[in-house]
């Protein structure tokens, strides 16, 4: 007890007990040594960057031009546009497919299951390429359609898991009150399922946001594409590394923000009295292993 009181956040795990004074001193030394190694690695990286002349004025000057900034912003806007379309459509498709999978009508059930399993097993890039090349669609609709088919199918599984995870008594009570099948679903099961699955749904949207960068491969003029245009400009001495150093923090930052939001929602929903009859899922994207138990 006293040990816990002394170092508040430390807790013994299955792996090791609370360290004693000697171990703590040893860990402190390890900590210093490893910090030195990590800082050394970072310094070496920085040296490499300077050594290969990534910080010359010529390579960074393009970012001061208005045209280049607008190009980057337009790319970012296009990325967000694709993300917005893809997430709205995949939420709709996910709802439809989940309804299909939960349907008691055999043909509907089988069709939805086949659809979900196929699109989850297929690389999203293959679908995007198929739509873009074989069906000769414009880049934006092709990207959005590919992302929608994939994320919609994963979301359908997420919704279904959510509906099935609602406490049995809820459904039984609703039927006992004389509600119809559709009423039970829309007024009792779905609201609780959505609350329970909201962290997973948002995490799946992070996947969609990350995958909008696939648009680069089908020449959709998104963020990465704008970066590539600047990076291959000879006038600025091919500023590839500077472009990566500008683009990746923005990309990664957006995704981190959304991931963090998913984690926050998970904590929020867990403390909400409206999720007492369901287990709120961890923040993390939906799984893709077919036939997974649960």
């Amino acid at each position, binding site marked *: 007890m006293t040990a816990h009181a002394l170092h508040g956040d430390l807790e*013994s*795990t*299955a*792996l*090791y*007990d609370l*360290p004693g004074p000697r*171990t703590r001193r040893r*860990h402190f030394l*390890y*900590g210093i040594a*490893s*910090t030195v190694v*990590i800082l050394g690695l970072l310094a070496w990286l920085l040296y*490499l960057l300077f050594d*290969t002349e990534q910080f010359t004025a010529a390579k960074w000057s393009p970012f001061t031009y208005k045209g280049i900034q607008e190009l980057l912003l337009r790319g970012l806007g296009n990325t967000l546009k694709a993300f917005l379309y893809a997430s709205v459509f995949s939420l709709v498709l996910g709802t439809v497919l989940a309804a299909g999978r939960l349907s008691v009508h055999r043909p509907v059930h089988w069709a939805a299951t086949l659809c979900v399993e*196929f699109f989850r*097993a*297929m*690389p*999203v*890039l*293959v679908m995007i*390429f*198929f739509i873009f*090349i*074989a069906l000769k669609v414009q880049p934006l609709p092709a990207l959005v359609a590919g992302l929608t088919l994939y994320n919609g199918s994963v979301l359908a599984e997420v919704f279904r898991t959510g509906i099935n995870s609602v406490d049995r008594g809820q459904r039984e009570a609703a039927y006992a009150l004389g509600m119809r099948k559709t009423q039970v679903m829309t007024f009792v099961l779905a609201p609780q399922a959505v609350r329970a699955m909201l962290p997973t749904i948002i995490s799946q949207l*992070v996947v969609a*946001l*990350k*995958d*909008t*960068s*696939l648009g*680069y*491969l089908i020449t959709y003029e998104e963020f*990465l594409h704008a*970066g*590539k245009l600047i*990076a291959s400009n000879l006038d600025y001495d091919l500023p*590839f*590394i500077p472009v*990566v150093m500008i*683009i*990746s923090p923005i*990309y*990664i930052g957006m*995704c*981190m923000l959304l*991931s963090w939001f998913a984690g926050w929602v998970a904590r929020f929903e867990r403390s909400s009295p409206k999720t007492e009859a369901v287990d709120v899922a*961890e923040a*993390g994207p939906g*799984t*893709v*292993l*077919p*036939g*997974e*138990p649960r």
Partner: protein
Amino acid sequence: MYVLTENFSLYWQGFLGTVQLTVYASLLALVLGFVMASFRVAPVGSFRVFGTVWVTVLRNTPLTLLFFAVLLGLPRFGLVLPFQVFAVLALGCYTSAFICEALRSGINTVPKGQGEASRSLGMTFTQTLGSVVLPQAFRSVIPPIGSTLIALAKNSAIAGAFSVTELLGTYKTLSELGYNIIWTFVWIAVGYLIITLSISALFNVLEKRWGITR
């Protein structure tokens, strides 16, 4: 329809390329993921920070951006390797973040009484880890690792767009040869289905054999 039979060797090469990418990148991801997971549960603070940063950054990086940075960026530092090696590197590092999280949550499912009991029996750290904690953690990480490796196999398609020999990349040659593009894609889809469904079958067997019902 005849695309497959007339170009079997091309498809076969692409298929093998995808399988190779998947296998090598999986191995790299499993090893790196294990290392990072042990960093994240280490008692030393700076290891934990390093592991956390690695996972958080890589999990939130678009894979295309990572490919872009690795395949086109590393050569500027004078590191010139075959594209396939770069692709394995990018895929492996990316997936290692997800493997790490799966392993870590697996370790966290082992009740701490298990470790305390084994230590009170006088087991050393290595013994506790090797014969008490990891075997139990292994059981609960089978499904998430399977699903991560399936995602890896599917993500390997991105390598094709960066001119690494693999299944999706075969469409270019075939469409130049004037074959029906729809059938070309049908057979590519079949190839990916074979790969992902066999990984899934493998992990379902593992799950049946060693998994636990929670």
